[in-house]
């Protein structure tokens, strides 16, 4: 992914700028994506968009700093997020079945939490969505990136 690094001066310059910018941007964007995820139930946003923003943040970071850096940042293969996310979403769907309710029935805590508001299975579900989106996007991009590198 960073094959063009040594091509010429200006290329290096852009990369440098991008690298610096992404180093600061990435955590911000990740935070923003989580914000988007949580507020999705009330304002435009949600798991999809949140997940996509997070992926873009990581992709841009990876593009600037190289695949290895991002791998060491993540500490695990993003593929692992996929089953985790699906499991989370599935469990929040199955949970009501144990109470004799139909699959995917929303269950809610009576009390509201600060910032997040109502807590219910929908939020867990949306978090699952978020994880799957991040996992899948990164798996795809990383697989391609690794192949191009090799």
């Amino acid at each position, binding site marked *: 992914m960073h094959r063009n690094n040594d091509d010429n001066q200006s290329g290096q310059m852009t990369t440098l700028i991008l690298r610096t910018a992404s180093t600061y941007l990435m955590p911000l964007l990740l935070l923003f994506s989580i914000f988007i995820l949580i507020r999705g139930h*009330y*304002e*435009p946003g949600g798991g*999809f968009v949140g997940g996509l923003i997070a992926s873009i943040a990581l992709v841009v970071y990876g593009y600037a700093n190289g695949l290895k850096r991002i791998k060491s940042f993540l500490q695990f293969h993003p593929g692992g997020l996929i089953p985790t996310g699906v499991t989370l979403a599935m469990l929040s769907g199955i949970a009501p079945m144990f109470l004799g309710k139909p699959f995917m029935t929303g269950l809610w805590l009576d009390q509201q939490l600060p910032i997040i508001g109502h807590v219910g299975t929908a939020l867990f579900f949306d978090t699952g969505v978020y994880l799957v*989106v991040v996992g*899948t996007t990164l798996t*795809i991009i990383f*697989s*391609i990136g690794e192949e191009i590198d090799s």
Partner: protein
Amino acid sequence: MVILLALMVGLMYAAGIYLVLRRSLVKLIIGLILLGNAANLLIFLIGGITRGEPPVIGEGEFTLGEVYADPLPQALILTAIVIGFGLQAFAMVLLEQEYREAGVTDLDSLKDEDTDDQ
């Protein structure tokens, strides 16, 4: 605006089909992506379009007002967009792998499997 959007949908379907009929692997993918977008736009258009009334319940209210955009097509499109992305990503990678294996991007040269009946 409906008529323009309808025209647009028609144009995108036409452009998509036209591209899918080309010999280039890359055009094939661009065509498929265009078709996917066209279908999403079609659902959006057919669901009915409304200006400036997003289906979000306002502060302190409990239901949507009198006028609001139909949220159902939006939800459908959202699902369709994401699914479409998954499929398109797969198709793109397949294209690239196909090129790596066969060494060409010309679809016309990929016909041995069908015609060889020995």
